[in-house]
């Protein structure tokens, strides 16, 4: 894992959490949408907060796919779960929602899970001989790669 790849994981985390938060902020300012008037949803897409949220979520999907091209799914999903933590922080300090102690405990569990997975290898290399489960490739960064 290079610094650039950790940056991609960071982008996944930030765009997912901010995208959902912007969508929530935008839809709350529009108010409840009735199923009898689904056209209101089309109108909602053009509101600034919702449009920004959609752009961020497109960015999330692009960076998520990029990460999956060089890391395992079971690495990327937990590693990017800090988005739930950021979403909780945004909900509390920006949207002024009430966050219970149990939810803060959930934040602790998620953070611990992220810590666990990011300390291990990110990719299962199937190109070597023998069972895939026994072979874990961890790219070794040469000083030249680190300087780049």
């Amino acid at each position, binding site marked *: 894992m290079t610094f*650039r790849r950790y940056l991609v994981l960071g982008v996944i985390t930030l765009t997912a959490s901010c995208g959902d938060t912007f969508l929530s902020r935008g839809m709350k300012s529009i108010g409840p949408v009735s199923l009898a008037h689904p056209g209101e949803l089309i109108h909602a897409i053009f509101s600034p907060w919702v449009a920004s949220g959609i752009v961020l979520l497109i960015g999330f999907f692009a960076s998520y*796919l*990029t990460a*999956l*091209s*060089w890391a*395992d*799914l*079971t*690495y990327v*999903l*937990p590693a990017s*779960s800090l988005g*739930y933590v950021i979403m*909780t922080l945004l909900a509390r300090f920006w949207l002024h929602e009430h966050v*219970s102690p*149990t*939810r803060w*405990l*959930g*934040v*602790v*569990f*998620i*953070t*611990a*899970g*992220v810590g*666990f*997975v990011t*300390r*291990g*290898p990110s990719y*299962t290399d*199937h190109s070597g001989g023998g069972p*895939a*489960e*026994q*072979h*874990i490739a961890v790219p070794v960064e040469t000083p030249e790669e680190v300087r780049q």
Partner: protein
Amino acid sequence: MIAAIVVTATAGDILTASAMRQVGDLDVIRERSGILGAAAAVVSNGRFGLGVVCLALSFFSLLFAFSHRDLSLIGPAATSLTFVTNALAAKWFLHEHVDRRRWTAAIFVCVGVALLAF
């Protein structure tokens, strides 16, 4: 209802991950063929298309479930269970090395997401 969300979301994630593994390192492709080349490589992969269809089905299953049950039940239940099913499916179908560390991480995140409901 929750099972439908979890199964389709897991199928979508597995198919998408499998497609990206088939396509290869996007950073390398982007250096060689630019962003459009990378996008074309992804979009032209059949498994990616199927994965997107499954993710779309999961999204509509979620909307259907929300119309019948509370968000506070459906959201965390579906999301947290998906972490565990993804780990199982990745081990069986993608042959990823899911060691004790990754199981622990999946379970911790699963419990953490479920606690966010309270």
